[in-house]
């Protein structure tokens, strides 16, 4: 069986002129980059645009990657910056999802998922719905911590903050997510009754 190449080995191949090695790198990390972008944009089309743009930027500055951190940490920092710039350009509403407009947006998101009643009651559905109601920064930190396998130091590098600030933000983000989740589940119980 052929041994899977590491990120660093793939990067070395790309820098040596093997462009298809970059396609392997994209395939490997596209889901996480896309998920991270989606935490900001809340729309799949925009998230794809941001993620694609980030991969192109990463390719162009691959020779500048110092390899002092994980490739994913470096890539996520590009995704984070690209998504922030995208939001600034589009002037999207990044307020908390407490207001009516954003609540409507969440409902639309939920209807987009087109899940059947059994799936709608699944834990995963509610967790994802709750996370989509968080501020982009909170959702990003939670995603990086639990999904992106990034340490606090690495998250700090991605978002350009102090490690202690990230730690506090992680606690607060989880607290808010818990509140949102409880709110959603209470609503569901009320609907069932």
């Amino acid at each position: 069986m052929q041994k899977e190449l590491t990120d660093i080995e793939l990067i070395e191949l790309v820098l040596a002129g093997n462009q298809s090695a970059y396609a392997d790198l994209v395939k490997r990390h596209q889901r996480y980059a896309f998920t991270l972008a989606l935490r900001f944009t809340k729309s799949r089309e925009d998230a794809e645009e941001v993620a694609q743009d980030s991969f192109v930027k990463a390719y162009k500055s691959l020779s500048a990657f110092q390899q002092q951190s994980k490739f994913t940490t470096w890539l996520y920092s590009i995704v984070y910056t690209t998504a922030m710039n995208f939001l600034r350009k589009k002037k999207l509403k990044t307020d908390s999802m407490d207001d009516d407009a954003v609540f409507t947006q969440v409902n639309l998101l939920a209807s987009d998922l087109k899940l059947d009643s059994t799936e709608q009651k699944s834990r995963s559905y509610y967790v994802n719905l709750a996370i989509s109601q968080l501020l982009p920064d909170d959702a990003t930190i939670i995603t990086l911590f639990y999904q992106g396998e990034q340490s606090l130091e690495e998250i700090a590098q991605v978002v350009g903050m102090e490690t202690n600030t990230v730690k506090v933000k992680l606690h607060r983000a989880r607290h808010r997510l818990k509140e949102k989740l409880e709110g959603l589940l209470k609503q569901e119980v009320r609907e069932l009754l």
Partner: protein
Amino acid sequence: MNETEEQLWNYIDGFCTEDERKAIEILLTSDANYRNKYAELKAFEANMPSLGIEEPSMGFTFKVMENIRAEQARVPLKTRINTGIIGAIGAFFICTILVLLGFVLVSVDWSAPSPVHLPEIKIPPVTNYLNPVVIKGFLFFDVVLGLFFLDQYFRKFFIRQK
């Protein structure tokens, strides 16, 4: 978020010190409220693996690679100029100039028929013009120029500060 919750999250994440960990473990065995809060947070933590990783569209990788190819095709002409060609053009002109210079030097008749007479240059006496009015005018102009540059410097400085 209260302090207990923060302490418990630090304990769950493994961010607390050895002393803090021991103190929390004592509280967990002795305090029922603390234990309940811990169970609540652990139950919440158990939900985290169900956070979905989203899948982009099927042609995502292809689109990225296409964008990269398009970017490369769009490289400006100046970055594609071959330095060898520039060097060759430069060398051609230098050679032409050297050949012409050599030809001129060779064809010059170096034997002068008569001694060279340098023309005499009469420098007018400058001190005649430096009367007090001219000196004062010159100093006034310098002061105005100095103030103008000082104003420019402060404008740039304040803009940078803002």
